[in-house]
Structure formats: C-alpha cells, structure tokens
C-alpha cells in the first residue's frame, strides 16, 4: 500500500517514517527539559506500550507556576490471558511504588496499567518489567493488543488449552522489530545488511488497533462480541476442546456526533480446529491490514471494514488466504459477562478466589489496605494470579493446605470488603478517565462509585438489593469499559454531562441504545428512579433489566451495531 497518498491519515506517514517504530524516540525521551515526547513520537510510544498523558486537574495552575503540563505516561503490560506468577505480582507491585503513582490499575483487557510514570523513569520501568519476564510491546498502538482469555477455573483443563492459544496468538502476532529492545533494553543494534522485516505487519502495521479474545462458555466475561477477533471455545460432551467458533468485527469505540461511527457486535465467521486457530487469526488480521481504512481513523477498525464490504466478502477473503474453508459454527450458550466472585473449586482439587476490585484500582487506603494485602498473599501463594476482564483479580490454584493461610490474610487486610457489595456494584465498571486520560470528556472512575451508591438506594427501596444489573461508565465514547454492553451505560459528553444508554443483554450478546443524551449528572437519578421502580414492580420472573427496558418500550433493541443510532426515542434531553 502506497504511503505517499495525501489522503492517508497522518499517522500512516509517522509509521512509515519511523523505521519500524524507532523514530526519534530515544532522543525525545533523553531530553531533560520536558516531560513530554514530541508529537510524532507520542504516536510511536503507543506501539511500545505507553501513552503520554497529563494531569488535567492541574492544567490551569501549571502555566502560572512556570511549569509545563504535568506530563506522565500510562504504561500497559502485555499479559496474555492475564496470568501472572506470585513473584511477578510482587515485582509489578514494587514497580508501581518505585516509578508510578503507587497504585496498579487492572484493565478491562486483563492486564495492569501503571499511571504517573514520568518520562525520565520510562526506561528504568521497562527494564524492571523486563526483569520480571514481562513486556509492554504492542500493549497499545495499531497492532494486535493483549490477547484476553477467560480465566475459567472450574474447567481448568479447557482453560489451560485456551490460555495456551491466547499466549501463542500473542506471540505470533507480536511485532518483530527490535526497536523496543534497542531503545529500552540497550540491545545492540544488529548491523546486518538485511532490512529489518515485519513479516506480518510491514512498515505501516495495521490501520488501527486490533483486539483478540478467547471465551469459554458459558461465561462471556471477556465480552467476546466487543472485539475484532474472538474465539469461542467449543468442548465435546466430556469437556474436551474440539475447536473454536471464530468471531470478527466487534468493537466499542465511536465518535460523538458521527453517526457513521458505532459500536458493533461481532459476527460469527465459522468454526476452526485448535490446530487452525492461529492461522485463521493471522489471516483475519491480514485481510484487515490490506483492506482497513487508512484515511479516516474513526472508520479504520475491522468492524467498519466488515460493515462496508460485507461479512460474506470478508469470509471469502479469509478462506482464500487460508486455502481451506471454515466449518459451520457450533452451538454455544453464554450466561453472563460478569465475574463469579468468591471461592470456586476447580477440577484438580484446587480452589480459586475471585476478589472484587472496585474499578480495578489496586491501592491502599487507611481502612482498605488492598495493595498490601495482595502483596502479602503473593509472598506465600503457590498458584498464580489471574486478572479478569471485569477489572477484578483471581487468586487461582489454591491448594486445600494453602487456603487457610490465604483466608487469614484476606481477613487481616480486609480484602473481603469488596465481596460484600451489592450485585449492582459488583457488576459496575468504569474506565480511568480524568485526571490522566487525554480523551476523557467527563469523570468516570472517580464518579461511578458515588453514582452506584445512589442507585443502590433505589434498588434497596424497590426490593432489588441483591439483583445484578451491568453498569458501565466511560468518560468518552471510545469505549474502554465497554459501555455499550452495559444494561445501563453512561458515556461522558462534557464535564458532568453523560449520554445514558439502556438495554444491553446481561450476557453481552446485545448492545444497548441511547435513552437520553446530554444528561447533567444530578438528573441521572431522578431520571432512572421511575424505570427501576417499574422494573421492581413489573418485571417477569428472571427477567433482566436490559431485557425489561426493551419489552417495556423505554428503548428499542439494537440488533447489530449500524442500527445503534436508529430508533432512538428521546434525543436532546436538554430540550
């Protein structure tokens, strides 16, 4: 693909010029006068796993203080399947104190983020991460991102196989440039006459980010339909893996005010055997590489390519490259996209504890020393830790002998605190947003806990205290916390103003729809109270809130994604 096309997005030129993601990154990082990297390098850092951000709370004061913006970096780890050893947990924890803001942020894609790492510490941080046998390569950027996998402890044989797939896909689709190793790990540049190659990506990588997940029914905790490429593990009657249904073209992000952008539920492309899985994934990515939109980044994700060209065309193109056809998809059934909290016994005599981590933020507070508690557990734990797709953490593989010691630490550090929350809170998820995220239009992580508190009051009044409703909030429409899959979704429009979406499926198989736009935050509760009261009084047995609001006519169902903006009943709340 030619890159001197003037129509191409500027980022395509940056990638082309970067000499496989090197650019002037080393020089830009070494400049001691500024905590920022230059504009072009800012784009390149993403491929290395970090984003430049600034503390937006203090923007106003900084200039007067003769200081530049309070720049820092968000560093995201690459942890396929979200599994880390207790030693890695301790290292990750220590690095947060040494170089980041002293907290760890679990993400919706099963990894850790550090926030507040200053430029001068980037290199040391990445070297420390490397020393724990982890990296940050391709954690962001126009590449295949961290590969997610259901951390399914009950069916641990199946999980082991699906985790292996996640790991192998991650390795297979990893950029091959040595830029990361040269810039951050001081690897000698190999003076070979051979031009460095990205056999899969080429000089310009992908048009846009590319997200891959593996789900193990009946749990859809990874939100399989919200990703570019998905594998739904299919087991036979004995629970033995026989292959995967492959899904393509899901995605959350959209742009306010552009109806040609929308969240989209993935299509099921077909079924493949475990041996074919990596090959199929590669070909899906390559079709997107060659046919994705490189002029308009808001139209560049695979979902738009498929929407534009049609799923039949896409399937043909993939099968052409594969050289064999995909099989018909197998039957499967999803129950929910939440996590199962508490202790669960696995098949091998070991048990697994999923802890609720409010908004995925691991930190110490005076009455909730969560970070210390998890570190203490890591010091004695013999199994491993698994980050879930809902920003929670699982202490996995606990032997019966080990369990009392773990439980003692849970009590000592009050880690059970997270377990006594309502079904509402335990199914709520917010992105980071203000103050660090440069995209945020409104608060999210700092506001949702309060909002859920008010909603809990209403639920209690309606006799719904223990009922679960999936609540998702993001500070912007880009969708990090997958807000369009919330039975109630809040998407920031401006400071203190949100679009409110209703009606997604509890198991993540249907998107929600806009109920009201531009709602001031103080009006959210008065607006939702009558709907929840109605739900409490008039729902059918077992009926989920997301289904109820459709049946009751509050919103029309969203079928696929491109109809996301259609049939909206009430717009312009302000009017």
């Amino acid at each position: 693909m030619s890159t001197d096309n003037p129509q191409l997005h500027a980022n395509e030129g940056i990638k082309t010029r970067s000499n496989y993601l090197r650019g002037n990154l080393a020089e830009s990082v070494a400049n001691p006068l500024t905590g920022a990297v230059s504009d072009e390098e800012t784009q390149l850092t993403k491929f290395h796993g970090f984003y430049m951000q600034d503390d937006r709370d203090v923007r106003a004061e900084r200039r007067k203080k003769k200081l530049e913006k309070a720049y820092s970096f968000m560093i995201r780890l690459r942890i396929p399947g979200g599994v880390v050893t207790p030693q890695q947990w301790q290292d990750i924890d220590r690095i947060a104190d040494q170089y980041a803001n002293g907290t760890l942020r679990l993400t919706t894609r099963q990894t850790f983020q550090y926030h507040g790492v200053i430029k001068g510490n980037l290199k040391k941080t990445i070297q420390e991460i490397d020393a724990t046998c982890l990296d940050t390569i391709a954690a962001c950027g126009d590449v295949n991102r961290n590969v997610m996998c259901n951390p399914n402890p009950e069916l641990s044989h199946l999980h082991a196989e699906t985790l292996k797939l996640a790991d192998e896909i991650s390795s297979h689709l990893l950029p091959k440039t040595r830029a990361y190793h040269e810039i951050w790990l001081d690897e000698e540049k190999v003076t070979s006459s051979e031009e460095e190659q990205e056999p899969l990506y080429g000089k310009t990588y992908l048009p846009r980010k590319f997200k891959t997940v593996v789900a193990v029914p009946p749990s859809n905790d990874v939100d399989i339909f919200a990703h570019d490429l998905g594998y739904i593990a299919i087991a036979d009657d004995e629970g033995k893996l026989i292959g995967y249904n492959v899904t393509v073209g899901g995605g959350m992000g959209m742009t306010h005010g552009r109806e040609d952008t929308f969240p989209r539920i993935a299509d099921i492309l077909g079924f493949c055997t475990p041996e074919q899985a990596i090959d199929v994934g590669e070909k899906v990515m390559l079709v997107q590489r060659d046919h994705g939109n490189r002029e308009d980044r808001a139209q560049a994700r695979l979902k738009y390519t498929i929407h534009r060209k049609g799923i039949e065309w896409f399937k043909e193109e993939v099968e052409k490259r594969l050289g064999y056809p995909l099989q018909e998809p197998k039957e499967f059934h999803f129950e929910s996209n939440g996590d199962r909290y508490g202790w669960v016994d696995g098949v091998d005599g070991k048990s697994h504890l999923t802890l609720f981590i409010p908004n995925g933020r691991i930190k110490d507070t005076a009455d909730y020393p969560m970070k210390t508690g998890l570190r203490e557990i890591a010091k004695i734990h013999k199994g491993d830790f698994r980050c879930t797709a809902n920003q929670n953490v699982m202490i996995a593989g606990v032997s019966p002998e080990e369990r009392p010691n773990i439980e003692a630490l849970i009590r000592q550090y009050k880690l059970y605190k997270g377990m006594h929350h309502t079904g509402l809170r335990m199914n709520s998820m917010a992105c980071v947003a203000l103050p660090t995220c440069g995209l945020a239009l409104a608060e999210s992580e700092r506001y949702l806990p309060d909002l859920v508190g008010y909603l809990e009051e209403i639920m209690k009044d309606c006799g719904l205290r223990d009922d679960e409703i999936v609540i998702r909030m993001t500070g912007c429409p880009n969708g990090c916390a997958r807000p369009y899959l919330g039975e109630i979704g809040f998407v920031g429009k401006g400071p203190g103003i949100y679009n409110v979406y209703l009606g997604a499926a509890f198991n993540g198989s249907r998107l929600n729809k806009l109920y009201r736009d531009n709602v001031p935050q103080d009006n959210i509760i008065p607006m939702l109270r009558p709907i929840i009261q109605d739900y409490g009084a008039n729902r059918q047995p077992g009926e989920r809130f997301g289904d109820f609001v459709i049946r009751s006519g509050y919103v029309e169902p969203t079928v696929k994604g491109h109809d996301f903006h259609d049939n909206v009943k009430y717009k312009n709340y302000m009017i």
Partner: protein
Amino acid sequence: MSNQRKIIPDNAPFTREETEWLDHFFTQMSPEQATWLNGFVSGFQAYQLTDSGVAQSQPSPGGLAIQQPQVSSVAEKPTLMVLFGSESGNAEALAADTKKLAQKSGFKATLLDMADSDPAKLSKESNVMVIISTWGEGDPPERATGYYQKFMAADAPRVDGLNFAVLGLGDTSYEHFCQMGKDFDKKLEELGGNRIQDRIDCDVDYEDAANKWIDDALKAFSANSETAQEPVWEVSEASAPVSPAQKEVYGKKNPFPAELTDRVVLNGTGSGKETLHLELSLQGSGIEYQPGDALAVLPVNDHDVVTEIVQVAGLSDDQPVTNKKGESVKLHNFIMEECDATVLSKVFIEKYNGFAQSDELTELLKPENKPKLQEFIWGREIVDLLIDYPVENLSADNLTSLMRRLPPRLYSIASSQRATPDEVHLTVAAVRYFAHRRHRKGVCSTFLADRIKIGDTVPVYVQPNKHFKLPESGDAPVIMVGPGTGIAPFRAFLQERETTEASGKNWLFFGDQHFTTDFLYQLELQDFFKDGIVTKIDTAFSRDTPEKVYVQHRMLEKGKEIYQWLEEDGYFYVCGDASKMAPDVHGALKSILQSEGSMSEDAAEEYLDNLKKQKRYQRDVY
C-alpha cells in the same frame, strides 16, 4: 618682604598674595627642608588621587597642610593594614569603610582581601586590623580558605611585635559563632602579635557595635604606634563612618519600600516544597543591581509568635518599651518590627538564664555540654525557653534587651535589571517545619509567603556581591550549578546574557526533588533553550527514583565535556546549599579534573585554586 627674591614665576597658578608668601618661604628654606617638601608634595598628590572622597570633602588641600603644621612628616605616617575575609560582602564593606576612616585618622592604610594575599606578608606590617566573617560550621569565607589554612598551620610565619585587633562577624544562631574571629585573634597572639584591643564578636546587627569598636581600635592603634601622630584631619563624626550606601537615597540605612507585584508558588500541586517566585517593584528607587547581587529584605515577625511571647512572659502588648532611638513604643509592635523573636542562641540562653537562674540551663551552658546545647537549640525558639524556664516579673525592657535586632535576610536576586528594569525578582524557599510539638516558620520566608499581600511594600536594599559575577567577556563559556533556589542568580545570568546578546555558551545543572512538581522556571528554561541562550541543561531529581540522584552525579556523567568547557576558559558557578551540595560539587569537579585531565588530587586542587584566582570558579552558597 623687600629683600626677598623672585622665585615663583608669574604664570604659576597662585594669587599674588600666595606667590609673595611662597617666594618668602622658599628664600628662607634649607636644602634639607627642600628635599623633605619635595617628597611631601608628591606623596600628598598621590594621596589625593587615591582617595577621591577626602579630596571632594576637603577642596582646599594646600591650605590644610599648612593649617595643620603639627604634621612634621607624611613619610612617618603609621601604616595600618585592614585585612578582610568576606563571603556576602559585609566584611568587605566594613573593611573598606575602616580603611577610609583610618586614612582620615592619619594612617597610611591599605585594604587587603585574604583571597589575594598570603600570611607571609604580615611580618612586614606593624599594624593590622582583621575583619572576618564566619560561615557554616565555623568555616572561613570561601575565598579566604587558603589564607586561613596557611595561617593556622604550624609553620605559619611569626608576627612578633605586630599590633593587631580582630573584628569578627557572625550570627549567634550558629553554633560556631564568630569562630574565625576567635581563631585569628588567638593565632595572632601565639605568633607573637600584640593585641592592642580586645576582639569583638558581632552578631547580624553588627553596624553600631562594629563602628564604635573600629573607632576605638583606630585610637588604640594610634596610641600604640611608635610613630604615632596626631590625626591630619579630625573626623567630625566618628560614629558615622563614610559609607558608600550613604551617598544613595535608598540603601542599607534607608531601605526602599518595594511593592510586591507578583507572587507565585513555583512548585506544582503535590510537591513537598514551597518555593516562591516574588516580583518587587523598584520603580522610583534609583536602585541598581547586577546579576549575582543579593537583595536584603527586612521582614516583620509573625504576629502570633510575638503575641505568644508577650503572653508567656506575663506582659501586655501595649506595655511601653524604649527603642534604640530612645523613644517609647508599644511592646508588641517593637518586637514585631525590631526584634529577633525566634532564633535561639547560646548568647540568648546565657542572657536569659541571668533572669531564669535555671540549674538545667546553667548545666547546659557549661563548655563540656556543647553538643547537648546544640541538640537543645535545634528546633527550639525563644518562645520555648520562655515557656519551659519561666521567669517571674520579667519586665518588658528586660525581655527586649535579651533580643538582638531583627536581622535582614539576603536572597540572591533572580532577575537581570536589563531584562526587568523596574523590578527585582526573588526565588525563596518557604521554611516551615514541625519540631518540639510546634509548627515553626522561617521569619522572612513566611513573611514573604504569608504576611504580605500583593500591593504591600517590603523594605529592601541591594547587597552587592562582586565575587559572583558573569565573566566580562560575553564570549566566555559559563557552567552554572544551581539546584533548588540556587537557580535564582542563574535566571538572572541567563536574562543578562540574553539581553546583552552574549555569544558564549551556557550550561545549567539544575536539581530538586521531583521533575513534575519542582522543575523551577521550567517553561522559561525551555524558552531559553529554544532561543539558544542555554546551550545545555542537565537535571537531577532526587526523589523520582529509589536511588537519589543529585547534580554532582550529572556532572560526573558529563565530566569530559565539563573539562572541555573549563579548558576553553570557561567559568564555573555554584549557587545553593553550602553544607552538602557545594562540597559535593567541588568534589565532583575535582574528580573530573583527575579523570579527564589526568591530574593528581593535588594538581586538581591547584587547578581549582587557579580558577578561583582567575575568578573562573565562583560560589554563592548558603
């Protein structure tokens, strides 16, 4: 007069009366007198040329010599060397005033900086007055270190018969108060000198006591000098020495009320530091300053601190006390504005114990308990003493007599007058800490931070520092090491080099705790860099990483280049902390010379000594 010969030509610049008088005089003159007069006239002329102040104030010198016929011989005028060691410029200014006074008092006086001299020269002198300040842990002024070490050495040359008197400048709030004065005084005696007046140890409000002592000392030197002569000219007011400051409308004696026009805390939210950028208006003052100079600020005490002192002393705010001018003023006001109401010192405790008669304090004041005393003083203030060792019936005048005068505080100026003609900028760290169950505040820094509002005026004067100056040549490379508030004079330097379009390279080393919140003047420095004013900047932020990184570590990383700059006749400046940073930077510089210049340790030290002599290694440390 009829028999006199015509000797003075008619075109000589004299009146007819004078010509006649001279003709008569020369006719009667012996050859011996003629020789003497020859020497006298040339000496007198030289004297006039070297001391314009006297010449201006005595416009009729011819008449003077004649009106003072008791002066038989200028050649026999006693000599007096005024030897000083100065850091901030106070000792130097005092020495310069002393020299002038001595000249007026009939001495052939010379002024000598220890930095430019050697103790060996002392043996040739007959009278020497030493004026020296003490710094840090009883250290000599930076530039007098070499002199001091040689003089204190076992092989220091004898000074038998040398008349001497020593004036020490210091600060009673430091443990080693006036240690330098004490050392010189003792050593001069040991080496055979003759102390003609007892040493004086002056505190920060030294002026009055020092002037009186100098006056007495000059009289003592006169009386002790074998060739003592009556003064040529009487000094009309011995207590009011000639001071350059007096010539200005505003100065030390008459501080300018400068309006505070801007105040910003430079540290970002979340910082552990509180560094203020202050802008003061000098409009209408006529005050001039150079980059490298300091601004003296006269603070007012914290109201609550004074109120508590008055209360615990059992006094009332309105009680009348007598101020220095003999006027009756209210106690609270007087302490607020005139007295050092916080700093605890040995001197203060001694005086206070005169009233308190505390066994505990008496024990503490014993020489063998010096370390305990220091420990006691640390973190305590005057109010603690009043509370813990109460005195019954302490009168208001008793209380104020204990306190020394509230000293001005000096801050390195952070602006160039070329860049900001009517303003002076300061970079001030607000001092706040918690000790002995109380929150403590630095008097002047919190005065500037909290107790004045934008639009209020602050009494200030300029304290010149001619030993911290940019190179005369704009082409010379300049290396500046200024962590923390040490950045202040370098902001002035950079502004100066920008406005004068100096072409020399500039390299700044800056450091503080955290990059994000403590990079003082970051945006300005970015502009200086963008505009090519700053050629290089290296930073060290000590608390961003587990291992502490300081400016000297950055220097060592760039040793090769630093050596290159020095070899290109570069200038090296250090400003900031004297206790740790400056010695560490010095050490780093030395090891750079050793590694990059292949020098022995001694050779490196000598190289640095030479740099100092060439004024290419200057420090402003505190």
